[in-house]
């Protein structure tokens, strides 16, 4: 027994090894925590799992389906068995989460009596009645059986923790990062690559998932010149190199195009853009598959080494090591030196060799060559108590067991698999040289390279040399000297690398329970039965059996599944491959994704005045607009009706700052508008306003507004609130082709606008205007535009009438918007002016029969369907969409029209008749309602609807009403409406032109 083993163990953590074992832990800083209600102690630097194991507690959870006791397997966060609940937070990885003082830890997926005694574990007895896919065959009949019977049972028995609904909110953040070379994985290869790239003058970001850099250097046995000398030397070099930035505890969770990498560090998501990417992600040790291979106490060899070296925890009293390579002998020697009695090394190879093998033999340990572990036996508390060995006949088959070894620890070192998730997401593929060999990665895209063990190198010197070479290649690529990363990389042969074990580590047992996928409790028979059921492709096997769909995403099951499917279907593992690798690499918190998202919003210059006036705001695109004003908490409908009547009978002011504004300037401005809009503008006089209607190449209406000619070469054009960005983009795009002498500028935010409307609008405006601005109809007629001063502010005044009353739109620089609003309110006091929201504006325009683009139009609406042929100048040689409109008209391609309708004088109709209500004719759908409202001025319900093009004025429309609240949706409610001529209000337009 070694000297270390002879030293007494700490009394309150009986499995803790004395110093110097335990690179991570601080023995002078004890921590207290509770697990399943019992108090324990650990050390700073422990993970939750290592602290529990130091106390002899192995059982961390119950399995998903059969509720079998489970403990850690990898100590590297690669399996679901270590998920626990910490201080109420579900699904915390016990083998990765650092222990903190006062932690309250609970196991997950266990029954009402706690972790130790779970009645659901009896399910394991009936596992033969729960074969793969049984739920597809058994739970779908009768019709509602799943919803009301099976699902509640299944949900109660399975799952991955429960969300804490009263969890306090936490701040999650996102940040961009940039570098020349990103190196993922700070093991030997990663650090060597980073140093080489940094020496080449690159900015390097070195990313490591674990808190401690070094990778296998931290725990593997074969480090020359002392256990930590090489690691410390590399770490010192990395720390002293100014152009290397090191991110520890950071998970690179995906690869996206152009080396866009999400890095998760605590509650922050870094969005990294790397010019060159080096993946030094190492390998994942793979478990063997045999009966009861999931018992607590059955762990990977690397897990045992992590426990010994990182945390100073002795993982067992008596161990058996199962191996198929030199790794297992190193584990055996490590255990031996830590005071663990090693009963035997079971080597699946018929003729073991190598220095470590010789050393093990020299120390007198028993070696069973050409043998396997056929079965593990559980003892008290479900922990491993013994293993049964058998001699291997050929791959996967063996003789009956003749040897039984008592042990409380089984370490498996039977093969490795490259950490393939990121390379495969980047577009690489896995290759598999033969039936018994492991996977290798090939086909990497440009700017992505592999380094070290992930590429198959095994010895430290090879790994370091490869890291340096790959780092230098990245530097060369950035300098423009070669960019074909993979071509320059030589892969070692499997024999050279030792990464794969030329054995078949899968042994079926007559009594089952050989787990291929521990997350989903899938056994060998489940995979074979899935193939037998006809699911011969791996992706189908995955969906049918759920293999690889658990939290560990196939890290420990992919290789075994590929081998089983290949053998069952007579294929090769290389052809079977692994299932598609998709982001994320590991589970990530929703908070990381949801944290610090941007939801842009825009406010007009009068925004705060609206709030002060009691406005109820609504979002219109990015803008906030006042829907209606309710200073005294009056009802919505009442407020809207009062605002409508204020405009009809007095004067109202509407904030129209959100309307798009575009300056079109230059000698070809009129020609440009002539081409881009449907109407004619070349002869539009200066000082006049003209309606604009935009169509796309298909003749579909996309926007509208007005064009104000301020000078021969200057138009001020308005567009809809939500459409201006598209209009601007369209204009730039078209003029890039036409090359007219015109400049287009989007000035939407530069102007605040107020629409002053109503019979008394002129009086209000006169009270705040300079005397030289003449407002009479003879001087400033309908559809006129003037520049002048309003309340001393430089303004553009447009005489237009969207709401059908005498109206002025006053546009001032947005910096002056609040002052304009204040001045109009002050000047309008004696005339009863009141602010009006957009809900009232919608009613007012409907009374005038004006359409709103986007509400009364859809992706097919043409000017003809909208009955707006008057806005199309047919004699123009060209405008965008003109040719399509000509063809549509010639071939009568449209069979619908937007018609106006009245639906009676019952105000309650508004609750039954809504926008999108369907028009029926002989039971068939022939159209739909686009706008409908109760008109306070007309005292009736009015609306617009798409109806068959043969609809005539006076015709009765049948509209399917919507059932009011509390009534069945199935109730048929057919309402009648009559087609009328638009506009509903002031057909002669006398009120707006006064």
């Amino acid at each position, binding site marked *: 027994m070694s000297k270390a083993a002879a030293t007494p163990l700490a009394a309150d953590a009986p499995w803790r090894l004395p110093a110097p074992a335990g690179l991570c832990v601080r023995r002078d800083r004890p921590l207290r925590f509770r697990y399943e209600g019992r108090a324990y102690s650990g050390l700073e630097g422990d993970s939750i799992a290592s602290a529990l194991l130091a106390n002899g507690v192995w059982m961390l959870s119950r399995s998903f389906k059969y509720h079998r006791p489970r403990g850690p397997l990898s100590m590297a966060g690669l399996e679901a068995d270590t998920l626990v609940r910490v201080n109420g937070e579900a699904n915390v990885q016990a083998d990765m989460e650092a222990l903190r003082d006062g932690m309250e830890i609970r196991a997950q997926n266990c029954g009402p009596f706690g972790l130790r005694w779970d009645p659901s574990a009896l399910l394991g007895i009936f596992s033969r009645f729960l074969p793969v896919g049984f739920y597809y065959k058994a739970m779908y009949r009768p019709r509602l059986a799943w919803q009301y019977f099976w699902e509640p049972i299944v949900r109660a028995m399975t799952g991955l923790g429960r969300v804490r609904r009263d969890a306090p909110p936490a701040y999650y*953040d*996102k*940040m*961009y*990062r*940039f570098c020349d070379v990103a190196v993922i994985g700070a093991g030997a290869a990663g650090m060597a690559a980073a140093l080489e790239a940094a020496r080449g003058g690159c900015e390097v970001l070195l990313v490591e998932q674990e808190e401690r850099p070094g990778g296998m250097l931290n725990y593997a046995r074969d480090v020359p010149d002392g256990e930590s000398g090489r690691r410390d030397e590399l770490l010192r070099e990395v720390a002293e190199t100014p152009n290397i930035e090191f991110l520890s505890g950071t998970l690179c969770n995906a690869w996206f195009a152009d080396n866009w990498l999400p890095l998760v560090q605590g509650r922050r998501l870094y*969005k990294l*853009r790397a010019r060159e990417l080096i993946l030094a992600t190492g390998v994942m040790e793979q478990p063997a598959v045999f009966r009861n291979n999931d018992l607590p106490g059955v762990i990977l060899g690397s897990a045992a080494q992590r426990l010994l070296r990182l945390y100073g925890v002795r993982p067992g009293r008596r161990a058996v090591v199962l191996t198929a390579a030199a790794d297992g002998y190193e584990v055996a020697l490590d255990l031996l030196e830590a005071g663990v009695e090693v009963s035997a090394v079971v080597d699946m190879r018929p003729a073991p060799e190598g220095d470590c093998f010789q050393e093990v033999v020299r120390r007198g340990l028993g070696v069973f060559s050409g043998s396997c572990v056929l079965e593990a036996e559980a003892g008290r508390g479900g922990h491993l108590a013994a293993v049964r060995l058998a001699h291997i006949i050929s791959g996967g088959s063996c003789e009956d067991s003749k040897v039984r070894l008592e042990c409380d620890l089984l370490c498996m070192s039977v093969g490795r698999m490259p950490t393939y998730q990121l390379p495969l997401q980047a577009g690489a593929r896995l290759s598999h040289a033969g039936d018994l060999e492991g996977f290798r990665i090939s086909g990497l895209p440009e700017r992505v390279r592999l380094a070290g063990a992930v590429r198959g190198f095994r010895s430290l010197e090879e790994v370091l040399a490869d890291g340096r070479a790959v780092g230098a290649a990245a530097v060369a690529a950035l300098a423009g000297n070669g960019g074909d990363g993979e071509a320059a990389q030589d892969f070692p042969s499997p024999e050279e690398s030792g990464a794969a074990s030329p054995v078949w580590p899968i042994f079926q047992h007559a009594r089952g329970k050989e787990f291929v996928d521990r997350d989903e409790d899938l056994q060998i028979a489940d995979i074979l039965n899935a193939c037998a059921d006809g699911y011969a492709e791996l992706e189908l096997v995955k969906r049918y059996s759920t293999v690889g769909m658990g939290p560990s995403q196939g890290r420990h099951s992919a290789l075994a599944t590929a081998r089983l499917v290949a053998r069952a279907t007579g294929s090769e593992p290389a052809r079977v491959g692994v299932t598609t690798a998709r982001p994320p690499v590991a589970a990530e918190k929703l908070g990381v994704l949801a944290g*610090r998202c*941007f*939801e*842009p*919003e*825009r*406010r*007009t*210059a009068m*925004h*705060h005045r609206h709030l002060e006036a009691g406005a109820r705001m609504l979002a219109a695109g*990015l*803008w906030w607009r006042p829907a209606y004003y309710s200073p005294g908490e009056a009802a919505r409908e009442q407020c809207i009706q009062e605002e409508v009547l204020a405009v009809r009978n007095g004067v109202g002011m509407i904030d129209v*700052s959100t309307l798009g504004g575009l*300056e079109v*300037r*230059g*000698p070809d401005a009129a020609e440009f508008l002539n081409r881009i809009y449907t109407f004619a503008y070349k002869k539009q006089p200066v000082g006049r306003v003209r309606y604009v209607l935009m169509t796309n190449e298909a003749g579909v209406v996309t926007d509208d507004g007005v064009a104000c000619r301020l000078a021969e070469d200057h138009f001020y054009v308005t567009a809809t609130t939500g459409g201006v960005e598209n209009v601007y983009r369209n204009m730039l795009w078209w003029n890039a082709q036409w090359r007219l*002498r015109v*400049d287009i*500028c989007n*000035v*939407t*935010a*530069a*102007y605040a606008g107020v629409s002053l409307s109503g019979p008394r609008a002129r009086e209000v405006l006169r009270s705040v205007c300079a005397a030289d601005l003449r407002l009479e109809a003879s001087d400033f007629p309908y559809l006129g535009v003037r520049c002048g001063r309003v309340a*001393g*502010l430089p303004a553009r005044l447009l005489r237009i009438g969207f709401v059908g009353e005498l109206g002025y739109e006053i546009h001032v*620089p*947005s*910096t*002056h918007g*609040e*002052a304009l609003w204040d001045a109009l309110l002050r000047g309008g006091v004696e005339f009863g002016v009141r602010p009006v929201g957009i809900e009232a504006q919608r009613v007012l325009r409907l009374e005038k029969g004006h359409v709103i683009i986007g509400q009364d139009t859809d992706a097919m609406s043409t000017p003809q369907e909208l009955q707006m042929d008057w806005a199309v100048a047919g004699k123009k040689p060209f405008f965008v969409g003109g040719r399509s409109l000509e063809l549509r008209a010639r071939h009568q391609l449209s069979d619908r029209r937007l018609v106006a309708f009245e639906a009676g004088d019952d105000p309650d109709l508004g609750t039954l008749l809504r926008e999108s209500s369907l028009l029926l004719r002989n039971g068939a759908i022939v159209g739909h309602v686009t706008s409908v409202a109760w008109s306070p001025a007309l005292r009736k319900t009015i609306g617009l609807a798409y109806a068959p093009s043969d609809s005539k004025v006076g015709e009765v429309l049948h509209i399917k009403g919507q059932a009011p609240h509390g009534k069945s949706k199935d109730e048929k409610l057919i309402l009648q409406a009559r087609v009328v001529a638009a506009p509903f209000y002031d057909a002669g337009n006398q009120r707006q032109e006064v």
Partner: protein
Amino acid sequence: MVKESKNAAPRATDGVARSPLYRRLEAAGARCRAFADTVVVADCGASPEEEERLRCLAWADFSPLPRLGYKGWEALSWLRARGLGVGESGETRCSRDGLLAARMGDEALLLGAARAAAEACQRCAADWEKERPSGVFPVPRQSLSAWLRIGGTQAPAMFAKLCALDLRTHRFPNLRVAQTVMARMNVLLLREDCVCAGAPALPAYHLLMDSAAAEYLWECIGDAALEFDGVPVGCDAFLGAWEEAPQAFGEKGARK
């Protein structure tokens, strides 16, 4: 127009032109003063500590200060004919009176942060009104864009929480201009470091954004700056100690 007065402290609402951020600044304890013919926030109640805060991270509302833009096929030659140095797209030139002329594509943006520069800006606007040159079209930047001045050693890190562009000092050099997206809104970002005699230059930026989104971006910046202890300050933190120091100019007009 607001007249400078040594007696009564002016308010942000004294004139008819108001910054979209004046309410935010009032809430932060802003104290105003007259500057050129407008009112700026002198400090947010913590002068002279605000100059110290600027070393780490601080920002001020420059929206009331003069700025304008010119577009069109003759715009650059017209400006150059007036003695205004306008460089290549993405570059900024600084004239002796402190007027910054930034070029983005076919638009030249003039920023008048210093007193003499403000006057130069106004002269330029008056000249255009008088001449009305063809092919030169003014862009109403005064009302179109709100203007923030952001400075401090932590400013690039703060920007990394808002913007996908690499704005670290060695990647985005002094007097560089970028049209980019910040917190999903289009912005113009111009780097002009703060310099003062005897002290190293401090990274500082001019940020121009859609004036309707100014309050939104103000909130985003405030949130992003929390971890760096960033605070809003008055214009004096930038205009006072840093920019009114004696300065030297390089051959190309860039400040040393």
